[in-house]
């Protein structure tokens, strides 16, 4: 899959933003007034910024509001509803904390649940696609949720829980790589089933339909990005989990906390780039590519 910057930014920052909102909704940290304002501003900047980034990959962004109509069948539509629900609930909850020094617990809890639901629906957009075996696994939503929670805990300054969640997110991430590497072969889709010619013999792509490239190749076939995938996996794991983990167990300082956050975000961006760049869409088989 083409690793489009808009979608990488969207999934990374909305995941972190809604992860932070989850912890704020549960009252961690228990802040009010200007401190609460600062936390919510960061969370909204990431969540809303991510959602806005996602509109950049639309061909017709001016019609984006139509995406609210098909919640009965479409995960993308459900995500739109969950995101708006979470942002409205948390907005009201934040107003109570910032302006009235009052924590309306029920709003916070509902907002926290909707924030996690948003991350889950985002993950299901990718998980539902049988055409991309690497994403079409039960572990994919676990990966998105565990990363969002770990990042949220980190941003919320919840050190002890962040340490545990970072390790869990790292283990889940490694597991998705190990399982993902076997997914295409396990899906049973190959050039033989794609062409139906496998019963005759070994199928080889002889000539593509056009001399030039096309939308399908640009969007779905990204072989070059996988060249350094092992190195990038190691880099992302170090930045995303190892560096923040070490910085958090050191004696607390705001500078280390900032470094941990920056390192984590860089690691998640790298991992998310790989999430797209490594994903093989079965349509590539018609071109003899993966």
């Amino acid at each position, binding site marked *: *899959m083409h690793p489009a910057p808009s979608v990488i930014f969207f999934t990374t920052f909305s995941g972190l933003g809604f992860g932070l909102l989850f912890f704020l909704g549960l009252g961690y940290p228990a802040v009010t007034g200007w401190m609460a304002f600062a936390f919510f501003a960061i969370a909204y900047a990431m969540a809303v910024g991510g959602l806005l980034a996602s509109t950049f*990959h*639309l*061909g*017709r*962004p001016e*019609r*984006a509001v*139509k*995406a*609210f*109509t*098909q919640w*009965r*069948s*479409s*995960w*993308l*539509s459900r995500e*739109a509803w969950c995101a708006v629900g979470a942002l409205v609930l948390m907005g009201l909850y934040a107003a109570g904390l910032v302006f009235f020094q009052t924590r309306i617990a029920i709003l916070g809890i509902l907002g926290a649940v909707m924030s996690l639901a948003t991350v889950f629906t985002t993950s299901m*957009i990718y998980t*539902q*696609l*049988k*055409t*991309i075996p690497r994403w079409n696994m039960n572990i994919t939503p676990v990966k998105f949720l565990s990363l969002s929670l770990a990042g949220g805990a980190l941003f919320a300054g919840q050190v002890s829980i962040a340490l545990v969640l970072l390790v869990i997110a790292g283990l889940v991430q490694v597991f998705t790589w190990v399982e993902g590497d076997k997914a295409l072969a396990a*899906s*049973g*889709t190959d*050039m033989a*089933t*794609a*062409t*139906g*010619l496998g*019963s*005759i*013999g*070994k*199928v*080889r*792509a*002889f*000539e*593509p*339909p*056009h001399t*030039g*490239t*096309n*939308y*399908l190749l*640009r*969007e*779905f076939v990204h072989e070059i990005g996988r060249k350094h995938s092992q190195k990038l996996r190691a880099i992302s794991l170090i930045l995303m989990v190892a560096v923040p983990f070490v910085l958090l167990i050191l004696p607390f300082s705001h500078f280390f906390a900032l470094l941990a956050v920056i390192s984590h975000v860089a690691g998640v961006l790298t991992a998310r780039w790989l999430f797209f760049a490594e994903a093989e*869409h*079965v*349509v590539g088989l*018609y*071109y003899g590519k993966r």
Partner: protein
Amino acid sequence: MTTLPAKTEKKLGLVIDLDTCVGCHACVISCKGWNTENYGAPLSDQNAYGADNSGTFLNRVHSFEVQPEGDAAAQLIHFPKSCLHCDDAPCVTVCPTGASYKRVEDGIVLVNESNCIGCGLCAWACPYGARELDQAEGVMKKCTLCVDRIYNENLPEEDRQPACVRTCPAGARHFGDLGDENSDVSKLVAERGGMDLMPEQGTKPVNQYLPPRPKDTIPESGPEFDVLAPFLEPVAEEPKGFLGWLDKTLEKL
């Protein structure tokens, strides 16, 4: 709604004969022509006369080489591919706006372009690469089965079929109701062992592909008699007359 209909009254679709297709790409051109000039946004090209040209096509012809086991000769198979109008079309259910839908009356999968936000998710969900996001218009384009031809009473009756079928010079493309087991296309599929592409994806495609016949094996009934064979015998095996004398003389030297 982007939920799929439980049942469609007809299953209009194509039967593509891989034994007959000669790979001329006439279906590609006629499709592009009709669908650029008629219903919906035109199929745009980018940098059409430059070095890195590309464009939107609803039908593309791949060519595959198939090497059978043993020493049999490889076969070259031309492989046209367009929307298969699947019964369980994954492109329809993922659509967030309801722009993608499958028609109850004939099973054709269509895009309502004025509702499409160009998110591309339907193209991600299609295993066949049947949908392409038009780069000029920003909306998803796909085969309509020439819905503006097949019911069009302004056209002569012989033209009321998809442009690709009408234009195919080899007769490799057939159009009809694959839900009716007595239709010509259904009989053809039954007779020739029509197949689904990527059946494991669970899309239940309506379009069927007829497998190519083996090209280089002698039937068990013996080699077929070729009426031209007597005319292809060598006419003069041994030179005669002066050339014969010259040949023999030069051999002796």
